[in-house]
């Protein structure tokens, strides 16, 4: 069976000492740090993260069981919660005293549910009666209350990315109150209610914090709610409901992801995909909220791909005692000891690993037969370029060759993204030119993502090798090239001339000159000097190419010199002369070229005519029919005298 696991754990996990009776493990989502606290800190605290290389080790006095431990942003101050009333602080700024200091929550009888750092020296306590925002002064070892809000809280969730704190209030816990922290202030956002599948009677806490997660998807903050199925309500399987949480305005239900099964789930966000892990089947599903599904109701999503498990993972046996012959041990995936954190973190506390979940794109190619949908999916992924190009090659290749409509759909999708990028780039350039003073803050240079597949990518990775492949019918090759050109034109993208060359090369190779002629006739292959020269070179095998080339040069209107060269090379001296006169550059053209060509033709009358024409020009320009020495026409004058005699030369008009 081909490789089908499209999710994998990162290769270099963060390793830490696994949880045990003497070692407690904590994870801080804000700094992505794992704390291994041995014996309440007395025998050492090791902090690792966000990657395996960074670690901090220290000791602290064992003052009771640690409930929560987190560094402030930038690892400046450590906060430790050991009781339900207070939080202790330890300075990690070298020049300040390291002795602990402590802060109790302000509200009477409240118990601290937890705390979050919102800045290097700002911390918010969440108690069952509200929230309290403090500023910490490490130099003075003091803490100042900035603001507080009182409301009854069941549980909380904090999203460090957006600095949004979500509080569960009300008896059922389904009324969520978000707060946002910005520049040391705390602002209340509009509260909203999560629709529960069944309303319990009597009312009891029904919404668990395990079923709520916050994440940023495609740059927008969402609250994800894992809605379990319920036998009583009319919902046969579980679903994930996304609530869009805008900065201003109310939070609204925006997407429903159909899980089509029941059981225990966990959520991650990877590369803007919602990943739903299902424990009992040991598989995961992925959802893309930007993929529209025609057969579903608005914003209801089915999984993008069939369920697959995460790629098997082997734990390498490293450390002081490496036994080389011993193979790595397979890791148990979807273990009940796993904890899942947003956006893409999976922690196995019992084994001492923190992994980042990753999407592997190559296996997705074989799981989605609809190439259009596949492209929609791939174009939104981060490292998509090579995979997309490989799909393009694949649909043009023998075995899994797609039909032309499929090829066209794929090209259209690629070029849509390509066009959007070009347009954004153009807008930016325009804005820059019109003066950077205005709107300069609003105008950011567009980012070129991997999804922007331009003509040179297509040429290099797909088309050039495709046209050279043996055994492909030339009809198909030409059809594909024309389809690509059509798609580019449809997106109003200027086609690069190497694509035209590829078309011409293919047509010439298969003797399809009449086809080529027709394409040129309808200007499908746009005019350019290189193309005109290429056509000229075809003249010996296909004589009409000469006319096509001249027409093209004429239309370019910047290629008059080339036209003269072409005509002279065909000894059409008079034609060249007439042409140069018609475009008005008779006065500054080199007489020598024309006289050479006329002399070579061996036609006496032609030479006479051309010679006289230039003499007349000289007369008109300088009042003298003689050639300037710089024009190097001495030999032609001699030749003229030989043929027609001295007396035939035009003489300067005598005054």
């Amino acid at each position, binding site marked *: 069976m081909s490789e089908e696991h499209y999710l994998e754990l990162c290769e270099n996990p963060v390793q830490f000492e696994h949880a045990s009776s003497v070692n407690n493990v904590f994870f801080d989502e804000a700094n992505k740090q794992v704390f291994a606290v041995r014996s309440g800190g007395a025998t050492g605290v090791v902090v690792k993260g966000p990657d395996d290389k960074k670690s901090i080790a220290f000791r602290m006095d064992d003052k009771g069981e640690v409930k929560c431990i987190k560094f402030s942003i930038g690892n400046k101050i450590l906060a430790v919660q050991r009781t339900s009333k207070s939080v202790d602080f330890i300075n990690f700024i070298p020049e300040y005293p390291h002795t602990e200091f402590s802060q109790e929550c302000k509200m009477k009888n409240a118990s601290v549910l937890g705390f979050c750092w919102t800045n290097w020296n700002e911390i918010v306590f969440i108690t069952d009666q509200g929230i309290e925002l403090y500023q910490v002064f490490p130099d003075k070892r003091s803490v100042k209350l900035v603001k507080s809000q009182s409301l009854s809280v069941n549980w909380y969730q904090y999203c460090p990315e957006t600095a949004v704190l979500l509080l569960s209030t009300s008896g059922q816990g389904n009324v969520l109150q978000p707060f946002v922290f910005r520049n040391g202030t705390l602002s209340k956002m509009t509260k909203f209610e999560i629709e529960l599948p069944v309303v319990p009677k009597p009312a009891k806490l029904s919404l668990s914090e395990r079923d709520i997660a916050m994440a940023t998807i495609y740059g927008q903050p969402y609250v994800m709610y894992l809605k379990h199925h319920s036998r009583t309500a009319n919902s046969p399987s579980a679903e994930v409901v996304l609530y869009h949480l805008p900065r201003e305005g109310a939070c609204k239900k925006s997407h429903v992801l159909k899980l089509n099964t029941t059981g225990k789930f966990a959520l991650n966000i990877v590369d803007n995909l919602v990943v739903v892990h299902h424990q009992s089947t040991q598989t995961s599903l992925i959802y893309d909220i930007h993929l529209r599904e025609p057969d579903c109701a608005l914003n209801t999503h089915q999984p993008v791909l069939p369920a697959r498990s995460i790629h098997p993972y082997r734990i390498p046996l490293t450390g002081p005692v490496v036994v080389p012959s011993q193979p790595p041990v397979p890791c148990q995936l979807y273990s009940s000891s796993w904890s899942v954190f947003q956006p893409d973190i999976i922690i196995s506390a019992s084994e001492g690993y923190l992994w980042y979940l990753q999407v592997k794109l190559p296996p997705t190619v074989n799981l989605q037969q609809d190439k259009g949908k596949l492209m929609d999916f791939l174009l939104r992924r981060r490292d998509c370029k090579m995979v997309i190009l490989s799909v393009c090659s694949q649909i043009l290749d023998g075995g899994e060759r797609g039909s032309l409509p499929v090829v066209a759909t794929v090209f259209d999708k690629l070029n849509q993204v390509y066009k959007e990028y070009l347009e954004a780039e153009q807008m930016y350039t325009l804005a820059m030119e019109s003066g950077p003073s205005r709107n300069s803050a609003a105008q950011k240079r567009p980012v070129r993502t991997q999804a922007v597949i331009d003509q040179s990518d297509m040429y290099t990775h797909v088309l050039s090798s495709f046209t050279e492949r043996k055994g492909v019918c030339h009809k198909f090759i030409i059809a594909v090239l024309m389809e690509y050109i059509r798609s580019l034109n449809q997106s109003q993208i200027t086609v690069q001339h190497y694509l035209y060359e590829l078309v011409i090369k293919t047509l010439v190779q298969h003797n399809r000159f009449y086809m080529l002629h027709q394409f040129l006739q309808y200007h499908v292959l746009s005019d350019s000097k290189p193309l005109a020269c290429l056509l000229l070179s075809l003249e010996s095998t296909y004589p009409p190419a000469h006319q096509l080339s001249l027409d093209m040069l004429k239309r370019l209107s910047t290629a008059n010199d080339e036209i003269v060269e072409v005509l002279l090379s065909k000894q059409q001296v008079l034609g060249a002369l*007439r042409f140069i006169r018609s475009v008005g550059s008779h006065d500054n053209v080199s007489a020598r070229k024309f006289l050479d060509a006329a002399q070579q033709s061996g036609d006496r009358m032609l030479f006479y005519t051309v010679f006289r024409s230039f003499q007349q020009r000289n007369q008109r320009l300088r009042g003298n029919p003689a050639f300037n020495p710089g024009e190097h026409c001495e030999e032609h004058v001699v030749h003229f005298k030989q043929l027609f005699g001295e007396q035939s030369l035009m003489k300067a008009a005598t005054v």
Partner: protein
Amino acid sequence: MAAVTQEKQYTPSLLSFFVYNPSFGPREGEEEKKILFYHPSEVEKNEKIRNVGLCEAIVQFTRTFCPTKPVKSLHTQKNRQFFFEPEDSFWIVMIVRNPMVEKPNKDGKPPTIEYQEEEVLDTVYGAVLRQCYSMYKLFNGTFGRAMEAGGVELLIPKLEKFFYRYLQTLHLQSCDLLDVFSGISFFPLDKMTYLKIQSFVNRVEENLRLVKYTAFLYNDQLIWSGLEQDDMRILYKYLTTSLFPRHSEPELAGRDCALRPEVSGNLLHYGRFLTGPANLKDPEAKFRFPRIFVHTEDGSEELHLIVYKAMSAAVCFMISASVELTRDFCERLDALVGPQLTLLASDICEQFTLNRRISGPDKEPQFKFIYFNHMNLAEKSTIHMRKTASVSLTSVHPDLMKILGDINCDFARVDEDEEVIVKAMTDYWVVGKKSDQRELYVILNQKNANLIEVNEEVKRLCATQFNNIFFLD
């Protein structure tokens, strides 16, 4: 008195047309065997033999003067004979009666007949004769092919069957310069729509693998040909002078009958077969299509010609004759092509009217001209009205057409670029220009214009109508 002075004008007409091969009856008494086809057939046998013999003699006799270039035509007072040897020893001869004027005489004397023998152009009727052969070859292959397949017994009925009908459609009185060119009128189209058509053709050919070649026309003008140029030239002639006119009349007559959409599946479309079955639903429908012969690298191949039309767009699909075409195939073609072609046709129509609106009505040429490019056979005429099955109408006097023909003959004699300006009898100016492989003929009606003004006028025409090609002033 008026009736007496009335002159009667007779246009050139076909006197006889025959095909013979001298090698088929070399001995005396066997002369009849040489004759493969003779029109009019009712002519008495000995006269046929005499006429053929005379032609043979003329060919032989003239050969002594120029062995490499056989005789092309013979001018006599009453008629003109055209000779053509398309295949070794096979001769086709066409005898055209010169146009004449019948002037009634007084006193009951028989009218005087004046033959206008100079009015007939060799190039025009020579071309008509060659076209007769090309058309025969398109539908029957070469004479040699029939000889190989079944000898004279096969060839004679083939000739009879073809020429009997074809000669009736020859309208010698309206033949002119365009017959010499035998060009192709191309439909002007923007790049994007053209690419869409390309895409359509490629998709159909991919889907219906049997289709070997495709040609696409709109408004009786060519847009795409998968056939080689020479084959397309004659096929185009057939389509535009025979097949399309035959079908356009019912369309014009009963609008609703032609525009009744075929409902197949959920798709509404206007597609229908111009060759083959008139109605697919008819259980008695026959799936027989005309067969044509086209050139290949090694000789020729025989193909079914399917012509399918939706609104003004017509597509020719050519399929190897070795394949039997079935109802199933035709239904598949209809279902696949019908909806797409309908859509495409309305796209083209939209583009076309859009472009027209942009360019404006004042851009419409006030000039009468004929343009022809030998390289791609592109032809454009503002002199000719729309062709119908019976006649091609011109908007200018035959005398002027004759001048055009004369200039063309002059051009044919030399390779060099040339320009000829003629002041015609009737205040008209006729200008002929030849640049590389292109020819342009302009007719101007400017009473008191002088040569310089006419020259300027033509320059202006070239600048507006032909600014995107290399055309020397």
